[in-house]
């Protein structure tokens, strides 16, 4: 059983220093690398109502934990200007947004379209699945293997994925480990 959270639930979370107990920023958006299958960093807003964008970014390696109620960092030094961050965080290549991409199995069956990423709670940005809109218009959750092909308009997932389309995040949290062991991912 793993606790999971969608990307949309991470947006707007406060970014809090562990040593200081201060809310120094809030999450504007996730910087996602679909090939690595992980969040590589976060863009930020200033804290408070209508207070606007912060120039700094938060690289994933400086994230202590993405939680359900806050993103925890060691201190404010973790927030750095884009030019001081690794390119994948400070100047990520375009065309990496997987939202709307079709999810196809290796056998050519369409499972739906990507709506959002699903992140492991307590991690520094490990993406364990996607929220998808199924062909019938419903919402489903699929686990993600560590390696998969991404083209910019579609992504190809292993055939067993179709047996693991879950109705909710709790179901996906329970299914992730079984899915990985079935694919021999340990």
């Amino acid at each position, binding site marked *: 059983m793993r606790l999971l959270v969608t990307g949309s639930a991470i947006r707007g*979370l406060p970014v809090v*220093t562990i040593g200081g107990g*201060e809310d120094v920023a809030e999450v504007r958006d996730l910087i996602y690398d679909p090939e690595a299958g992980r969040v590589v960093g976060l863009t930020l807003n200033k804290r408070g109502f209508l207070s606007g964008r912060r120039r700094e970014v938060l690289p994933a390696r400086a994230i202590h934990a993405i939680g359900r109620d806050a993103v925890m960092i060691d201190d404010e030094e973790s927030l750095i200007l884009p030019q001081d961050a690794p390119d994948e965080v400070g100047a990520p290549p375009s065309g990496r947004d997987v939202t709307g991409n079709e999810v196809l199995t290796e056998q050519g069956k369409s499972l739906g379209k990507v709506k959002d990423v699903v992140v492991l709670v307590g991690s520094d940005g490990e993406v364990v699945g996607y929220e998808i809109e199924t062909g019938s218009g419903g919402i489903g959750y699929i686990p993600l293997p560590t390696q998969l092909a991404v083209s910019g308009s579609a992504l190809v997932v292993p055939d067993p994925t179709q047996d693991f389309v879950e109705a909710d995040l709790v179901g996906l949290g329970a299914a992730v480990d079984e899915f990985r062991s079935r694919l021999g991912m340990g």
Partner: protein
Amino acid sequence: MSERFSSATGRRLVSRASAEELGELTHIVVDVARRQVTALVAGKGRKAVLVDWDQVSGFGPDAVMVTDESALHPPRDDHESAAADGKLDLVGKRVLSDMGEDLGETSDVVFEPASGAVETLVVGARELPATSVLGAGSYAVVVKAPAD
């Protein structure tokens, strides 16, 4: 015998030198990193004054004995001003685990009145050892994630 902030608050401060009543305990100031009470606040608003912990000669069940009236001083810096206003109070503050989970609010703090050592934070049904506190600020107290 351990004491709780909730039962200590409101207690009289009395001068040991003159036996004069000096005010009523309103806030207890804690250095989270040292897990230690560092000062007490008497009174409220602009009349709030602080007494450093080393000037507290006895934290008794009926009165808090202070060496002398001269030990009471108005806030000397921004930190003490915030403390005197209760802005740094642990009680009522949001508690976050280092895994980013909101555990609730601190409802009480247990401390050792002889030494001023902070022992436990009461957060809802949980009692978290003071050693699990990693930091505290205006937004939250951050604690090591409980095992459960």
